[in-house]
């Protein structure tokens, strides 16, 4: 095999991985802020994809569709946080986990009720003509996804590092009581976290729509996103993104080297191995909890 073949595979893996990275990011942000892992996050991506479908059926151009999808995602996230998450946030872990699952299931079945199982296709913003440099080919839609992922990661990273609400969120995640005493509104932090993560989720849906088509099963992406988040250590923004890209590369290379069955199994085997031996991931901070 020539080296360019592997480079080509790596390009494919990174483009797939970018989507996982975005989903992982949208999982990690509220987890970092409020300790809630949203298992319904995939369905927020599905919602984003359908929002893009509706808006482009109105004939809006892509540069208007994209911000509207992100804004509607944020709005839905805020509503879910206020109506469904805040009442159970102090409940045992089991209740919160199952509640987020139930929210996802409700969204998914509502979408299936309205639009049915028929997949809709949408065109990417830059057409399907592959770009060729030096004999390496890349789909412009995939490049656009990678670009957006890099931009969002930088934005989120900067937000947590420099912006006031971002710093407040970090304080809340370290010690909610001390943060309250310093005048930080905990509920405000949670609101920010959910709005942001749903916006990122909706963006992920918008971006993958041209690649995987729009159907109620888009939310299944969350499974790979979760593996990516665990790989990255659950509390690390950059870890989640790197984890996503690693999962994408793993799948692509496993598919070529070892076949389809291994490709499908690989992310989950990695997940179980990680949870067994390194539950804090490759980049996360070690959380010691012995019984």
């Amino acid at each position, binding site marked *: 095999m020539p080296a360019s073949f592997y480079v080509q595979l790596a390009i494919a893996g990174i483009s797939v991985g970018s989507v996982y990275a975005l989903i992982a990011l949208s999982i990690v942000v509220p987890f970092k802020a409020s300790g809630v*892992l949203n298992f319904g996050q995939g369905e927020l991506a599905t919602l984003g994809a359908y929002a893009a479908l509706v808006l482009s059926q109105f004939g809006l151009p892509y540069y208007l569709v994209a911000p509207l999808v992100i804004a509607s995602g944020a709005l839905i996230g805020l509503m879910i946080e206020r109506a469904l998450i805040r009442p159970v946030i102090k409940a045992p872990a089991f209740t919160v*986990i199952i509640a987020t699952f139930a929210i996802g299931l409700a969204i998914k079945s509502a979408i299936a009720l309205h639009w049915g199982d028929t997949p809709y296709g949408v065109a990417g913003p830059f057409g399907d003509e592959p770009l060729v440099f030096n004999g390496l080919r890349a789909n412009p839609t995939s490049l656009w996804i990678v670009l957006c992922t890099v931009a969002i990661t930088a934005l989120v990273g900067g937000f947590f590092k420099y912006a006031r609400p971002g710093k407040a969120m970090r304080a809340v995640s370290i010690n909610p009581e001390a943060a309250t005493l310093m005048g930080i509104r905990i509920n405000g932090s949670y609101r920010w976290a959910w709005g942001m993560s749903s916006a990122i989720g909706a963006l992920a849906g918008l971006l993958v729509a041209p690649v995987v088509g729009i159907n109620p099963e888009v939310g299944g992406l969350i499974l790979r996103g979760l593996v990516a988040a665990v790989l990255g250590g659950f509390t690390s923004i950059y870890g989640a993104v790197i984890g996503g890209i690693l999962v994408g590369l793993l799948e692509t290379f496993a598919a070529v080297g070892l076949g389809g069955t291994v490709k499908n199994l690989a992310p989950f085997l990695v997940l179980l191995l990680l949870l067994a031996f390194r*539950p804090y991931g490759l980049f996360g901070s070690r959380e010691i909890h012995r019984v």
Partner: protein
Amino acid sequence: MRTPNERTLLCIGAAAALLVVGALVGSYPAYLLGLAMVNVIAAVGLNLLVGNSGQISLCHSSFMAVGAYSSSLLASGAGLPFWAAIPAGSVVAAIVGALLGLPARRLHGIYLALATLGFLQIVQIVVEEFADFTGGVRGLNTAKPTLLGSPLTSYGVYCVVAIVCVLAVWLAINIKRSRIGREFDAVRLSPHAAQALGISVARVKLTAFALSAAYAGLAGGLFAILVGFIDPNEFGIAASLRQLTYIVVGGLGSIGGAIVGAALLSGLPELLRPIKEYTDFAAALVLLGALLFMPHGLASAWQRLTPKPKATWRGVPA
């Protein structure tokens, strides 16, 4: 509340009543009742793990799949009769449950949820990809159960399900009151205190996983002979959430709650038959509503109606 002998007599009475009811109602209602009893077995098993020992499992339906597929394959491949194949399937599920319990011993909260979710995916993929054995996504027709050379009638299958269901419930009641059940409670209420009292938390978690997997495997094997057809869709994440809904609605940790929850909600798809497409949505709303407004389930409502001056499953108030 009752002596062990009274409880056993009550179970025998329940079994007799179920057998009579199954003979009186038509074959379709009996089939639905059979499905409800399969769900009761699965829910009671899940409740031992989630409600009593306080663990999180999103892969109960996978253990059901392990039981269903291994008992069906043992029956068709190795020619085992159903009365040997179904317990064997349950044992296989228990072994797989113990294997999953090994890494799960050290996990809690979301990490446990993630591990069990990953396991569910692995089982789904294995069933779908190894189609030569499992029939893949097209499903598997299971062998007709026979007893002493003659095939079982649908009422015969109903009787098997009813008797096993009552036995499983009777066993669960006694497990809950045994040393193992008390250990489950201790681990749920405070793992640290349990460990300090000399209970090996790791061993208890392993026992809980294996035991609940055995129940799920039993339910899976019975499901296979009752329906006569199994496919991976039947054992996906939706099924796991459905089983969790049974015990959340019924009341975590309460066997009566699990029975009532599973029996009531098994009727939901029938009730919504005219508006069938709303079933999934309704199921999600029931689960969400129960978590938000009735976190202790129907069992706590029952306890409020019949107050007793004694410790409940939630333990003695501190």
